[in-house]
């Protein structure tokens, strides 16, 4: 039962972090080149434009939920399991969400790269 609880928290953490990444990416694509905006209108205009974007605020909310799920998962399980498991699964989940929600062209190169990073992160805990 405790294992189910732990994996539920990890699952929620992965979903929230991936959703946060996807929402932030969608928000930034709607705003356009941030560096160009900063060069033309200044840093304050960038901050104002970013915080006016609904997707960005939902992205931040998702990441906050993810952060509290991480704290909860860490209180239920070992850091050596929670941190790499969540980081690795988030990579794969974000790639899947980016393909189907953002319609990104995730080719073989990107899938292989996500898999290599995923395994690499898991090995970092050994």
């Amino acid at each position, binding site marked *: 039962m405790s294992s189910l609880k732990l994996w539920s928290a990890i699952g929620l953490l992965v979903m929230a972090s991936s959703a946060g*990444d*996807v929402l*932030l*990416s969608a928000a*930034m*694509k709607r*705003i*356009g*080149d*941030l*560096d160009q905006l900063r060069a033309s209108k200044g840093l304050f205009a960038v901050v104002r434009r*970013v915080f006016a974007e609904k997707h960005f605020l939902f992205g931040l909310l998702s990441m906050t939920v993810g952060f509290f799920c991480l704290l909860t998962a860490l209180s239920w399980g070992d850091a050596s399991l929670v941190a790499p498991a969540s980081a690795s699964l988030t*990579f794969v989940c*974000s*790639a899947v969400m*980016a*393909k189907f929600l*953002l*319609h*990104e*062209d*995730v*080719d073989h*190169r*990107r899938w*292989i*790269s*996500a*898999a*290599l*990073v995923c*395994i*690499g*992160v*898991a*090995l*970092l805990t*050994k």
Partner: protein
Amino acid sequence: MKKYLFYLAIMCFGGTGDVMLKRGMMDLGPITLKNWSHIFAALLDPWILLGIGCLIGFFYSYLTALSWADLTYVLPATAFGYVIIAMWSRFFLHENISAWRWSGVLLISCGVGLVTRGPSVTRRGAAQEKETQLSMKQMGERHELA
């Protein structure tokens, strides 16, 4: 060139920020429920402040990179931060890095190397562009024949 500088900033600021926070928390000692208010003292620690500064730099670079590149391109680049953490942990915090961890670092580096050799952004309507180019070429050939 500017874009690669932003990817580099993501890698360096993310990893360095985490290590600076760790270094600051080493000064502070473990936080428990009994002394939870000590967490606020962390905000006065120079290492923690440096770490927060780095993480602000990381977030700005991350958002900027997302404004022109795909998420599936930027994510592996941010993953290289784990390699930076391993390097700092070995040479700055003097932690032991096992052979397994070095192999993890190698795999992440391969993943980052692989993805950065491809295009950074999905071209919208690429198929339509191709069709347009093809029809333009066919039109040109017809004119030459005529």
